[in-house]
Each structure stands twice: as C-alpha cells, then as structure tokens.
C-alpha cells in the first residue's frame, strides 16, 4: 500500500470500478436516488461534468459527431475518451452513432438540482422535539473526542484520559482495512496503520468510508443500500437533525457503527434523530474545491489541528501542542527531549527517523506531515521546511535502500548463439529483461518473465524439431 491510500482519488476510482461492475439492475436502483446521482456527478472529472450538464435537459438522443463538435479539433480525443468512460459507468448509452443520457440518471439528477421528486434520499429532517443541547460546538467536541479515541487506540496510548474501550465494530473495521492486526497482546498497528496516522483527517475519513464499501461486499450486504447510504451521508448538512425513519435495518446498523467513529452523532435517549458531524460534512465541501489541496488548511481543521510545528535548520523541533495524541504521533519519528505546559521540544535524529522508516513510514510521508502541520510563521516561507532537513530525511531513507533487490531468474550456458538471441529477443519484446550480456551469453529475467518464457518453449515442444530449443532446465 505504498500509494496515497484512502485519499479522495482512491475513493473515486473505487466508486468508478464499482459502478462499472454493477449489473444494470443494480445501477438502476443506485440511480433512482437523487442524492446518489448528485454525489456521483460531483465525483466526475470536469470534462465529464460538462458533457452531462450539456445533455441534461435534452430528451432526444444526440449524434456522436455533434458531441465531438463541442470541443476544439485538437482536444477531440479527450472528448471521445470521456464519452467512453461515461459509457462504462453506465451514465451514457450509445447506439448506432447517437448517445443519450441514462434516462433514470437524467430524471433523478434533474430532481436533485431542482429539488423535485422524492428528496428523502437527501435525508429527512427530523420534526420531533429538538434537543436544545445539541449545537455545533457539542457536535464538534463529540466528533473530535471519538476520532481521537480511535487514533489513540491505534498509537497505543490508552493510559491517558480514561479512554472507553473501542467497540467491536470499530476494531473490525481497523482489522479489515489492515490498519491494525491481531497480535499476541491484543491488536497491534501495522505499517499501513502508521502511514494512516500521518495523513490529514479528510484522507482518514475517506479510508474509513471505503472500508464500509469493502465490508459490505464481504458480508454480502446489499451493495446498493450501502452505496446509497454513503452518498446520502456525504450530502448531509451540519447541525441539522435527520430522522432515521427512512433508513433500512442495515443502514441503521451502519449508523450505529459510524457513530463510534465520531462521524455521526446520535443521542442515546432519543434514537430517532441523528446528526452529521463536521468530519463528514467537510468531505464534499473540500471536494468541490481543487482536488489536491489536502496538505493545505481545509475546513476540517479545528483549533487543535491548526499548524503548530516549528522546525529549525539544525533539525530541532518545537511543537506547540498539548494533545497526547499529537505528541504520540510526533514520537513516531522525532526524538522528544522536553515537555512543557504548552510545548514539546525535540530533534529530528537519525535514530528517530530510522525507527520510523523501519515501521514502514516513508520519508515523503514524514515531510508531508510536517508541512501540513507547520506553524503559520513557517508556512509563510518558501519552501515551508528547511531544505537541509528535508534532504537529510531523504538521504537517511536512501541509506537504508542501498540494495535494490528483485526476484529473478538467471539463464546461462545457452550453447548455441542463435538460441540465446531468440530468448533474448522474446524477453525484450515482453519487457522482462533485467540484465543481459551478449558476450558471456547470460540473461536475467523477472519471475513472471521466466514463467512466460517457459510457457513459450513448452508450447513449441510438440513439433520436436532438432533445431528447436528445449525449455530451460530448473536448478
């Protein structure tokens, strides 16, 4: 899991894969909810959005050539590619040169935009007696508490503030997403878990939501229900009470599990209403802004997440924070020296960074984390962090990677020169050559390459010609 996991991009591609793989029946059900259509529309790239918008209020099919006319000649390839992509997502239908929008999708998207139709998929507001105590501040406090409890659990610092043990469902999600695994002394954090800790909150929330999608698959739950619920969640408004009336049993179960993460708030005494916290509502607001601003200050930042780290050119770190969680996270790669009432100091040392590297955290992640949490005074400089320190962290990473090993097979003693040439040319064609020496007639290919080459020669065996080479003998 070396790539940016749980980020928006991964969520988008997973949703895209899902929709592509869904049979038409299911797609119809997903599209029959206006919230789902709107959410899917928001997840599309700009060109896709443009195409859909243009076709939204046209009832008749369009000619494909007319669609291509919308773009300048040099960009027509892009338009064609987008049309193809939308077709794969079952949003567009094509027949004999004309295209039209999936009628159900079209209908419901219009409803979503104009507020008509059945808007229960956006969440029915709760009309019962409102609990006056539930205000945005309390919601924020609740969300932060629960989210920090989860992160605390991962870092392993449960000695601080009597932390209520996490519910089984939260632990299941952590286990399923391979962020933690069962060890001899309870659950232990994995390498991906360490990387998860260093990400910003938005990416973390996306990861959790993604897990629900996967969990649903595994438990044979109705995927459409889960998808619809996810899309509904993402379009909820902060601070409004929503009723659980319209939700199915499975969705209510999901609601309970998400409550443990701090994404949803539900008062125990009155379970008919639920509220979305800022963790969820900021997901769509940040997604309508530019996509890759995840390292910049987003609306997700509460006062505690505002930049607090100062990094000097001599690798000394001063972190103005009191939160045990943030200190624990810093402890992953910083050698902390002293702690004051509002400040923690330490230094970035070779040992500290090596410990982190051995846990699977990469130098880039450390640097991204420091940049994202840098004090506002640091952020006004370019580059944000001193170049000396970032370079040094990268050098320490390279130090550990002096060898670049690859599993491979080594061929020697070919006998005939033409035999060597044949194998070499074939291996070059399929792109599996790691190293070759024509004078010594030796060749190194990857594991998969070896399998393919062996297959090639096995298939040639039946002819059994004297000049035909035999498959290489295993040794």
């Amino acid at each position: 899991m070396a790539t940016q996991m749980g980020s928006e991009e991964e969520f988008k591609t997973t949703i895209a894969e899902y929709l592509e793989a869904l049979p038409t029946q299911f797609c119809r059900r997903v599209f029959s909810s206006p919230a789902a259509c709107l959410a899917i529309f928001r997840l599309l790239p700009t060109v896709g959005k443009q195409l859909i918008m243009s076709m939204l209020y046209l009832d008749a099919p369009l000619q494909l050539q007319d669609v291509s006319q919308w773009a300048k000649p040099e960009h027509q390839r892009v338009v064609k590619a987008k049309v193809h992509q939308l077709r794969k997502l079952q949003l567009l239908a094509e027949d004999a040169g004309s295209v039209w929008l999936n009628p159900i999708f079209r209908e419901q998207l219009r409803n979503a935009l104009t507020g008509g139709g059945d808007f229960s998929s956006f969440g029915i507001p709760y009309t019962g007696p409102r609990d006056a105590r539930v205000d945005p501040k309390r919601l924020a406090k609740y969300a932060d508490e629960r989210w920090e409890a989860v992160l605390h659990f991962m870092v392993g610092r449960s000695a601080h503030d009597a932390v209520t043990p996490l519910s089984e469902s939260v632990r299941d999600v952590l286990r399923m997403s391979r962020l933690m695994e069962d060890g001899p002394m309870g659950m232990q954090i994995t390498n991906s878990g360490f990387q998860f800790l260093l990400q910003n909150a938005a990416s973390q929330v996306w990861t959790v939501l993604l897990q629900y999608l996967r969990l649903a698959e595994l438990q044979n739950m109705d995927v459409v229900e889960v998808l619809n619920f996810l899309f509904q969640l993402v379009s909820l408004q902060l601070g409004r009470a929503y009723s659980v009336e319209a939700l199915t049993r499975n969705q209510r179960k999901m609601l309970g599990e998400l409550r443990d993460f701090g994404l949803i708030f539900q008062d125990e005494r009155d379970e008919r209403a639920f509220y979305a916290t800022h963790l969820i509502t900021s997901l769509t607001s940040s997604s309508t802004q530019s996509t890759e601003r995840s390292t910049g200050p987003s609306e997700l930042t509460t006062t505690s997440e505002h930049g607090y780290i100062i990094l000097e050119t001599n690798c000394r770190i001063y972190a103005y924070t009191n939160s045990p969680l943030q200190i624990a996270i810093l402890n992953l790669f910083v050698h902390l020296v002293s702690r004051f009432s509002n400040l923690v100091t330490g230094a970035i040392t070779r040992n500290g960074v090596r410990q982190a590297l051995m846990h699977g955290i990469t130098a880039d992640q450390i640097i991204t984390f420091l940049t994202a949490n840098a004090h506002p005074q640091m952020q006004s400089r370019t580059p944000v962090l001193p170049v000396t320190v970032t370079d040094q962290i990268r050098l320490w990473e390279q130090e550990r990677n002096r060898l670049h090993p690859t599993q491979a097979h080594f061929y020697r003693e070919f006998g005939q020169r033409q035999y060597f040439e044949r194998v070499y040319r074939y291996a070059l064609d399929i792109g599996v050559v790691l190293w070759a020496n024509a004078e010594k007639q030796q060749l190194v290919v990857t594991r998969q390459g070896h399998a393919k080459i062996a297959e090639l020669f096995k298939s040639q065996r039946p002819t059994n010609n004297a000049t035909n080479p035999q498959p290489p003998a295993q040794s």
Partner: protein
Amino acid sequence: MVKAVKGTFIECDPAAREVLLRLNSEEKFIIEDLDTTHLFINSAHLQRIQNALDELMDSNTYTAA
C-alpha cells in the same frame, strides 16, 4: 541445455558491491557476479546481507551525544 537459476537480482553502487564481495568470502551467497553494479545472489541470504550492510552504515555514523 540452458541452465536457469532462481534467485535475487541486486542492483547497487560499486562500494556496496565490494562490501558484498567481502561478505561472500566468509559465507558464500553470490551465485554470479554480473558487472560493477549488479549481482545475482541466493535469495535466502538477502535479509542477512541487508542487516550486515545496515550495521556497517551504523558503525560509520558519528553521533554527537
């Protein structure tokens, strides 16, 4: 007949290669020395030689404290 050997292909810098050659003289793991920057070794020893290289880098590091 061609001989195919299963193992690990290593790409490294010349200095690391020299270190590996010296380690090899104590316990053989190199199947073939390919050229100045590549080696082919027995996969079972990979972890061991990575540890040995790590220790070497450690011993050549100066810490102020």
